[in-house]
């Protein structure tokens, strides 16, 4: 998770020009870092590429819109990294 977080934090820092030190596992990508949905596409692209996965953004968005999940579950970076690790693990299974 720590290396996953470092990779994700670096991606966010470079993609959105956010100082690396402001990005923590507790940061909410939208509420704390001010990343909008369009910028998040660039982040998702870089994450997909870096980890060889496909973040299920549509499913997550649908779940949030349907009230079945909160944005914190997907967009707090610590939670995001846990999900990335799960997707990587599932890919290798």
């Amino acid at each position, binding site marked *: 998770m720590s290396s996953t977080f470092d990779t994700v934090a670096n991606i966010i820092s470079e993609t959105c020009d956010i100082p690396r030190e402001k990005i923590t596992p507790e940061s909410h990508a939208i509420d704390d870092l001010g990343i909008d949905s*369009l910028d998040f*596409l*660039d982040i*998702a692209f870089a994450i997909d*590429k870096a980890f060889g996965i*496909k*973040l299920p*953004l549509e499913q997550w968005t649908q779940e949030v819109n349907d009230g079945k999940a909160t944005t914190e579950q997907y967009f707090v970076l610590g939670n995001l990294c846990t999900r990335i690790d799960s997707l990587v693990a599932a890919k290798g299974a």
Partner: protein
Amino acid sequence: MRLEYFQLIDRIVALDLDARTIEVHAQVPQTSTIFEGHFPGHPLMPGVLLIESMAQTCGWLLIGLNGFSRMPFLAAVKEAKLRSFVAPGTALSITASLVHDGSGFAMTRATVRSDGKTVCEADITFRIVPFPDPRFRASMAEVARAIGFPLEVRIDG
């Protein structure tokens, strides 16, 4: 091309779903009201319409890849370079490829050439969503048939 109607693609030359590439032909018209203002005495194909022509080319590729089930909407244009003027009457060949197939989005790259020479290029991002209205999909299917979209079964499907 019918610039005033944003009909910028005349014919799909090749659509390779395995290679995830497309090539289209686009003929810049000799006359258009757009050339009256862009520019008086020096008519040029507007750069924004060249970018739109690349976006439409990428869009047809994405529609081909998703089996005409979803609509790509232009979301971002990056690294757009307009390398030379395009005059009325110019024949253009536009090629595009899929760079990344994301969840609800896609990254593409397109190039416009004239006589083999690169005129412009760009990296283009799309959001991809279900067709918002059946009439919209029907109108897209009509355009698809007109420009030789090769997957008739899927158009009707």
